[in-house]
């Protein structure tokens, strides 16, 4: 557990802080999402909260918006300590939140979405519309109040969210990863709006994990890592390198694999893989080609939402590629074209799959562990013989996985939902490595997993690699990526744009390449 480091730079005194969080701690069964978080936001500033995915930013914001009560700690707004039991309390305290996943109803009109819950202010008639028009003007929302929300694009929806917050009289606005869904021009427009509003006296909390954006918009930046605040800095003076170091940290167990086990036997070969995106003329995957060889870990780096999820799901056959081929070579060197095969056939051909979202894609939550052992392996020993299941075989093999992979559980009959995230993941890793795979697809294998489980999972991947397994690793944790991979490819907007050598690349260089920045050796501009 890391302790909070001394702030890199003192926060300039600007009167009574708009928001002051002291010693906030929040626990969930099995994990501590926030521990002793301290945060001071001055009035009239844009304060960025930075951190990797899963560092605890969202939980902290939910606490500030009254959606979850903190277990410990205090919240003060404009100098007064408050108890925020629900969002209404937060709204009354002048806090508004623009959620990353918009809290909007598609079948209601723009006006209805804005007025809902705040009808007491101006009703839903003419006065309300006048106020709406005023706020729309300020935020650059051009939609008519009677337009159905579903007809709006993403940027306009976000503006509706902002208008909604302003309509309720918020002075402190939380923007939760607001740029994740926007294209660059829209980001610029958003930032212009934020700057204008800042000049009018609004305070912003800007949640992001993108350093360049933070440097572009924020007056102050606070970094959260592993659930706690590690420091506050002035983005104008701190270097990207220092910021990245604060975010990524250096005390983590390093997942290094140095001596190379890469062979020259290709296992997975993608050629020109392309996937169309629904409702967009830009492809989700555009001409992706690479080869993973036996004993090699190929890491894919990229900002989330640049096609990694689609890549994995297309290789697994859960999405149908619109072009290109997927070939898998088995141990005897026989190549098989999997492009047209179903998911089950691909798994049987020897692909193990650790999915990005384990509760949605890897587990049957209410079923006992041994039933979960069957998922994806229902056609193979020891789970089944022909059309029949082999219950005894499955159970004893589950026992083996629990033992060998250190799954902490009272038994194999407990439902998967009762385990902590780390133990669920260990079970999944054990299962996916038990089917004699030739290729393992590991998508964020240690996300939301405690440090102990993380080290174990890394060790398992390393051993499997040494035994000749080909691994395709997708991760947002750059240390993990650099430490485990033999080769790193960077993905941007559905394309593989550059390659990096994990032996020499730094997380900072990789980070720049991921955002397509030009001042970097590893990145090549589009």
């Amino acid at each position: 557990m890391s302790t909070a480091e001394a702030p890199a730079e003192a926060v300039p005194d600007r009167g009574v802080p708009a928001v002051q969080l002291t010693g906030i701690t929040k626990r969930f069964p099995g994990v501590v999402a926030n521990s002793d978080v301290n945060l001071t936001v001055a009035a009239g500033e844009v304060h960025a909260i930075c951190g990797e995915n899963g560092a605890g930013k969202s939980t902290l914001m939910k606490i500030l918006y009254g959606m979850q009560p903190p277990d410990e700690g205090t919240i003060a707004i404009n100098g007064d300590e408050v108890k925020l039991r629900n969002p209404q309390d937060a709204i009354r305290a002048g806090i508004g939140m623009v959620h990353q996943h918009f809290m909007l109803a598609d079948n209601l009109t723009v006006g209805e979405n804005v007025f809902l819950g705040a009808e007491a202010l101006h009703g839903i008639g003419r006065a309300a519309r006048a106020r709406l028009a005023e706020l729309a003007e300020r935020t650059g929302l051009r939609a008519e109040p009677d337009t159905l929300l579903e007809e709006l694009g993403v940027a306009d929806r976000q503006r509706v969210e902002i208008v909604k917050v302003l309509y309720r009289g918020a002075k402190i606005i939380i923007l939760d990863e607001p740029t994740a869904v926007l294209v660059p021009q829209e980001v610029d427009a958003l930032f212009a709006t934020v700057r204008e509003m800042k000049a009018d006296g609004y305070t912003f909390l800007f949640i992001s994990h993108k350093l360049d954006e933070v440097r572009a918009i924020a007056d102050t930046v606070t970094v959260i890592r592993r659930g706690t605040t590690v420091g506050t800095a002035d983005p104008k003076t701190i270097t990207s390198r220092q910021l990245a170091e604060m975010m990524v940290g250096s005390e983590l167990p390093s997942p290094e694999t140095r001596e190379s086990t890469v062979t020259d036997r290709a296992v997975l070969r993608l050629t020109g893989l392309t996937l169309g995106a629904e409702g967009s003329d830009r492809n989700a995957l555009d001409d992706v080609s690479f080869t993973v060889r036996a004993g090699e870990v190929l890491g894919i780096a990229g900002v989330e939402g640049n096609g990694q999820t689609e890549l994995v799901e297309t290789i697994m056959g859960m999405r149908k590629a619109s072009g290109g081929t997927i070939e898998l070579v088995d141990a005897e060197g026989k190549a098989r074209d999997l492009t047209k095969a179903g998911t089950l056939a691909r798994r049987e051909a020897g692909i193990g799959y650790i999915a990005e979202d384990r509760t949605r894609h890897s587990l049957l939550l209410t079923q006992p562990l041994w039933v979960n052992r069957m998922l994806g392996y229902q056609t193979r020993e020891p789970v089944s013989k022909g059309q029949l299941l082999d219950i005894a075989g499955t159970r004893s093999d589950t026992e083996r996985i629990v033992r060998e992979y250190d799954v902490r559980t009272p038994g194999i009959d407990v439902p998967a939902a009762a385990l902590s995230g780390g133990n669920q993941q260990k079970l999944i890793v054990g299962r996916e490595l038990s089917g004699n795979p030739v290729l393992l697809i590991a998508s964020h294998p240690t996300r939301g997993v405690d440090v102990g489980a993380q080290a174990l999972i890394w060790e398992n991947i390393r051993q499997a690699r040494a035994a000749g397994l080909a691994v395709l690793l997708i991760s947002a944790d750059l240390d993990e990526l650099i430490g485990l991979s033999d080769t790193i490819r960077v993905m941007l907007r559905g394309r593989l744009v550059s390659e990096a050598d994990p032996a020499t690349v730094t997380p900072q260089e990789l980070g720049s390449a991921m955002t397509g920045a030009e001042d970097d050796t590893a990145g090549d501009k589009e």
Partner: protein
Amino acid sequence: MAVTDISRPDPGSSGTMPVHRKRSRVPGWLRGVIWAVIAIAVVSTASYSTGVSALTSSNTASTALRLALPILLCALGGLWAERAGVVNIGLEGMMILGTWGAAWGSYYGGVWVGLLAAIVFGALGGLLHAVATVTFNVNHIVSGVAINLLGLGVTKYLANLIFEPLSGNPRQSPVVPKFDTYSASFLSDWLGDLEKEQRVGISDVAGILRGLVTEVAPLTMIAIILVPVSFWVLWRTRFGLRLRSCGENPVAAESLGVNVYRHKYVAMLISGGFAGMGGASLVLLRGGADYLENQTNGRGYIGLAAMIFGNWRPGGLLGGAALFGYADGLQLAGGGEAVLALLYGAVILVAVIVVVQLFRRQWIAAGLGVLGAGILYLIYWSNDTLPSDLIPYTAHFVTLIVLAVASQRLRPPKADGQPYRRGED
């Protein structure tokens, strides 16, 4: 340095489409009028070409109105429930409760007391559904099926207890007072004259209109007025907005201070009350029976179908109820021959649609339309009458076909039927 990150829109959110769907700007009421005109034009043409005058007779129209009423009220009940996000399969059970309540209240206190009792009984059913689905998060379908069972059981029990001593028959109530009817007599007579003149078009319209203004009961008027009232409340008041938000995105609604549970409860009470009124309309109108076991005969389900048919909109469900009522009324007033003539009308309608599709260059749709029209015409041409056993199910067949053809274009409330628990997202 300029911001260079251009991460792709989140594929999970439906808002990623830059495609700007242009919706037709025809206001709802105008679309309703257009459809009514098309419908009347089609039946008049069919009536003229086939020589079956029952298609547009005032007798058919007034029977259709009476038969459409319970369906309309149930559909309204379904609308209120589903707009608040509760699927209400239990309408049938609530309606059965309403029939008993209507007969009981009317017998002891007159028609208005009967109507009130029907509403209260239906609302009790709605309350039960709300307790199960909202408070205990029971699957909406399961709860609805249970309420249908329970409604039937309770009603039979009560009928045994209260009605048998009076009527000597546990399946039937004694004769109960019915609503008086009123005619716009001047208008009615004038339209009657027009109808008799047998002029193409004018007589048809006159016949239909005359059926709608002659011998109308207050309950009928109330039911019809409830359609615009429902629209106004649901779409033009803040209560309606909050109620609909519960059916669209309850998590967002709750985060904005809407008490989702309370709104769902209120919606279910109203829904049940409407279904109960639907039951009353079976018992308290002239021409209908008194309380009779099994008299609802699945009308609650048909009401639900009419609502889906009407795309979860008041105007649409009025159209759906009118269609189902007309199909029923026609069969009662004109028999299999008349329904066959309606088939001819359907051929005309499909032909019109085919022309529209050709105009829009939707070749496949047009082709399928031609095929469908051909089959319908073949049936029409090769039969003198339709099998009388199957005619009562016209509405059901129409519903299935409409669902199969237009299911993707329907827009139910987003969170319809989904469990919602406060504090879980």
